[in-house]
């Protein structure tokens, strides 16, 4: 019957409309959060650059006796600090990160420090060894990062793991985000410029200096990566919700067309019935 199907279509239109309202609202929230997140991300970049150079300078300063934090160990245990989202509905943002780590971690025993609710839930479900966890990426403080950094350094010194990798998503543009694995320990000096023959004075000495500064440095890196990841999450969510909203409006258009057709055909049918009745 045309009447019943008209009612069905109307109901579907209404449900799609309410879904669209939600996706639209989420898109707006994501865009406004993205603005703040991008500013924070940009602000954290100079620190990364300056601090990295300083650490390289110090670490490579005494080439004779290299610091214990520069010499790579044979990797049997690896620790991942995983930065993922607090919420879902961000396209493949969270899934990409977990897939990348799963692929990367197949050659060693690994444990994780999940940051963000989605990461925590995922690794709890998978039963991977969790060292410590943080529930929220949004508004992650420097103090929280410092705590993680100190923890990681202590365990690294104790030899509990041989490598520490920071897994985060780097914000390239609103449309592109890239998952990145950045080795934290041992210190990554591949990109470091060749040390010139210039003399450098370290006080008290390079090793003590590095040891003292590393907790702060790692905390800064984790903080910066968290800012980067959070901006990426918002961008991914914005794009995902944008296309969801578009799909919903397409669906509504399609359903309206079907609704109008059904209405037209029911009117036509009624008219034919009336005309047929009058002719008798």
């Amino acid at each position, binding site marked *: 019957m045309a009447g019943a199907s008209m009612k069905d279509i109307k109901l579907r239109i209404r449900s799609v409309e309410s879904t669209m309202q939600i996706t639209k609202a989420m898109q707006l929230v994501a865009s406004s959060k993205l603005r703040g997140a991008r500013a*924070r991300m940009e*602000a*954290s970049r*100079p*620190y990364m650059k*300056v*601090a990295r*150079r*300083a650490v390289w*300078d*110090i670490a490579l*300063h005494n080439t004779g006796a290299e610091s214990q934090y520069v010499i790579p160990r044979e990797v049997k245990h690896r620790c991942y600090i995983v930065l993922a989202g607090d919420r879902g509905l961000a396209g493949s943002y969270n899934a990409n990160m977990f897939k990348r780590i799963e692929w990367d971690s197949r050659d060693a025993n690994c444990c994780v420090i999940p940051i963000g609710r989605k990461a925590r839930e995922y690794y709890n479900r998978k039963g991977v060894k969790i060292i410590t966890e943080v529930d929220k990426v949004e508004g992650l403080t*420097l103090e929280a990062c*410092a705590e993680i950094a100190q923890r990681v350094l202590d365990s690294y010194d104790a030899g509990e793991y041989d490598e520490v990798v920071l897994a985060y998503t780097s914000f390239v543009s609103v449309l592109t985000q890239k998952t990145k694995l950045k080795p934290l320990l041992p210190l990554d000096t591949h990109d470091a410029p060749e040390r010139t023959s*210039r*003399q*450098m*004075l*370290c*006080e*008290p000495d*390079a090793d*003590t*200096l590095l040891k*003292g*500064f590393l907790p*702060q*440095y790692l*905390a*800064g890196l984790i*903080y*910066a990566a968290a800012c980067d990841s959070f901006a990426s999450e918002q961008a991914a969510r914005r794009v995902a919700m944008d296309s969801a909203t578009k799909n919903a409006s397409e669906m509504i258009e399609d359903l309206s067309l079907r609704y109008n057709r059904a209405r037209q055909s029911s009117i036509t049918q009624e008219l034919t019935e009336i005309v047929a009745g009058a002719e008798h």
Partner: protein
Amino acid sequence: MALIHLTVVTPEGKFYEDDAQRIVVRTTGGDVAILPHHIDYAAALSTGEARVTSPDGTVRRAQVSGGLLHVASDDVQVITHSFAWKEE
């Protein structure tokens, strides 16, 4: 007149960047003054006061807590988690 180029960075952003005549900071070994043409140098900072002498001779004081001082050919960098001017 030779000047040093001072940059103060914190993870929350670049805090300060300007030329200066001189900077005095509290390192773990005591107060250290950096003047132009200083040798490349790195030192651990402890909590204490930093004094920056700008090119016009005025001195600004700031509270620094921990971090690193890095000098590379007149580029002086203070890398810390907390840096705040003390305004009189």
